[in-house]
């Protein structure tokens, strides 16, 4: 699953670097905000990719779980008055517990049925959104902290600096997951389970436990991400939906099980959206970029299939 970058990804990577270089001179704003937005997509899509690679489940409720993490952080901040950055710490174990409960109650029973899995996660997404709707209502909530609005000026352009937290977080999560999967015993066991569950069972790996730990860990990451998200964005029950859809699309575009591809496609999507937003009056169309991209990829793949 973590095989070296495929040949095609190299080509796409080089194309992106060229595009980024052009953007840096022509519209530097687009480069910066695209990178920040894209990192957020990568952050949410990476766990989806890992869950898919190891459990074989495409989790359609991932953005909704992030919404849950964000609301957890919000409740902590409003109840105790702590800084949202500190709320990241308890959010991690809290989401881990949510992950274990979700796995035990639902995911565990459908690991072998692909259609039902997807329907189940769709049902979970609906449930999470509507429960949040019941508890916190649809009113957008914000947390104001002074450092969130910090900005920097280089030459003629001014940009927000706080969003670079997402870039840093994406880098940390990517490197952390890479190290975990290649350097630790548990990670190697998880990789083995992903490649061949029966073979892994034969050599003595507890497959059930691995599934549970990986699923819960991937949800636990969403706790801190939710807290970070809360600092810069207004949150409401429906806030996770677009992120779920984009995360799943990014995983599909990268090709199922191709983790480096998720990085490339996630950043690429962020850049493309920022590019469309930079034209006055066309900002509303940015939300369908990901759909255009996935349709192109689907056309390309079905064309390939016909040639073969």
């Amino acid at each position, binding site marked *: 699953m973590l095989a070296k970058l495929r040949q095609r990804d190299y080509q796409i990577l080089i194309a992106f670097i060229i595009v980024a270089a052009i953007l840096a001179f022509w519209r530097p704003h687009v480069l910066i905000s695209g990178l920040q937005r894209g990192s957020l997509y990568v952050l949410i899509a990476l766990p989806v990719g890992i869950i898919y690679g190891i459990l074989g489940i495409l989790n359609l409720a991932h953005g909704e779980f992030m919404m849950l993490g964000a609301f957890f952080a919000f409740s902590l901040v409003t109840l105790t008055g702590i800084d949202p950055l500190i709320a990241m710490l308890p959010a991690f174990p809290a989401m881990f517990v949510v992950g274990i409960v979700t796995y035990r109650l639902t995911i565990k029973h459908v690991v072998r049925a692909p259609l*039902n899995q997807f329907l189940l996660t769709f049902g979970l997404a609906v449930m999470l959104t*509507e429960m949040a709707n*019941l508890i916190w209502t649809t009113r957008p909530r914000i947390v104001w902290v002074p450092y969130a609005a910090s900005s920097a000026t280089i030459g003629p352009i001014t940009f927000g600096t706080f969003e670079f937290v997402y870039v840093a977080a994406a880098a940390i999560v990517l490197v952390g997951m890479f190290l975990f999967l290649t350097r630790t015993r548990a990670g190697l066991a998880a990789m083995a389970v992903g490649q061949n569950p029966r073979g892994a069972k034969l050599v003595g790996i507890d497959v059930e436990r691995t599934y549970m730990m990986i699923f819960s860990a991937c949800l636990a990451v969403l706790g801190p991400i939710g807290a970070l998200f809360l600092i810069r964005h207004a949150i409401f029950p429906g806030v996770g*939906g*677009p992120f779920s859809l984009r995360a799943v699309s990014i995983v599909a575009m990268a090709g199922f099980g191709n983790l480096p591809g998720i990085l490339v496609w996630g950043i690429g999507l962020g850049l493309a959206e920022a590019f469309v937003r930079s034209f006055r009056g066309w900002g509303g*169309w940015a*939300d369908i970029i990901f759909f255009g991209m996935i349709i192109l990829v*689907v056309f390309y793949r079905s064309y390939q*299939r*016909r040639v073969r």
Partner: protein
Amino acid sequence: MRNWRYIVYIVVISLAISFPFYAGVHPIHVATTILSLLALALSWDILLRGGQLSLGVSAFFGIGSYTTVLTHLNWEVSPLLSIVLGGLAAGVVALVIGLAVLRLRGLYFAIVTLALTFIFIVIVRNLTDLTGGAIGKLIPSVIFGGDPAMIYWLTLAIAVATIITSEIFQKTRIHFALTSIRNNEIAAKSSGIDIFKYLLFAFVVTAVIQGVVGGVHAQRFAFVSPEESFSLTFTILPLAMCLLGGSFSTLGSVIGAGGLGVLAEYLRLMMPRGHLAIYGLVMVMAILLMPKGIVGTIREQLVRRKTASS
């Protein structure tokens, strides 16, 4: 005793047709809503029989609604014809999307159809001159002058047409094609079944049904808006109904729609916001505890009893 089945059909149909004569206005409205949701649930199930999971019911519903209203307003097409046009528009969109996606297996189909809803919300909201943007459009007059009985009969006709379509799909060779695609695609292919053709046909037919239902809905309430017409409710409710009643059968969706539809009306009054959580719960519980649905489980019990007694 072979004829008892037909007697049941005749009684049910005559009861359904004469419903407006002995029921009040509110029950007629509820029944109309249930019948349109029944058509949506059943059309979704028809495609599921081929192993294709569509999450874009509300997309085709919304396309139907908008086409109906826009053709009615701009070209002064008669309401009934505009509903037909709405269905056709949904069918054309399904044809284009299906040509691209149905060649690929796995989850591409589900992802693309789910995305379709959000895409059309964005398109409709941004083409302000044509669609009225975020506010939507109003029709000056409701279809049939707002006569609830006529609207009920129209919806009943659509629901019955959907049931007949579903039965045709169950009784002819399409049934074997779709079932074999779902169970073992390679075996289906090696038996000479043109998988792509059958799936595309089923996808377009179901999209037309969903578009027509959307068109009737738009004419009934005389307005369209991005959030109302493309509301995910029209995906979630039919899915929950079909999964509860039992997938892969006509009767399952009918029973699920009847049961959940009455409950839905009650819930809407009890908890105005967040009542969709119940349907999410119903979906999850049905998948986990009763994967065959009510009808499938009962049928299984009957077969077991029959084999035990013989």
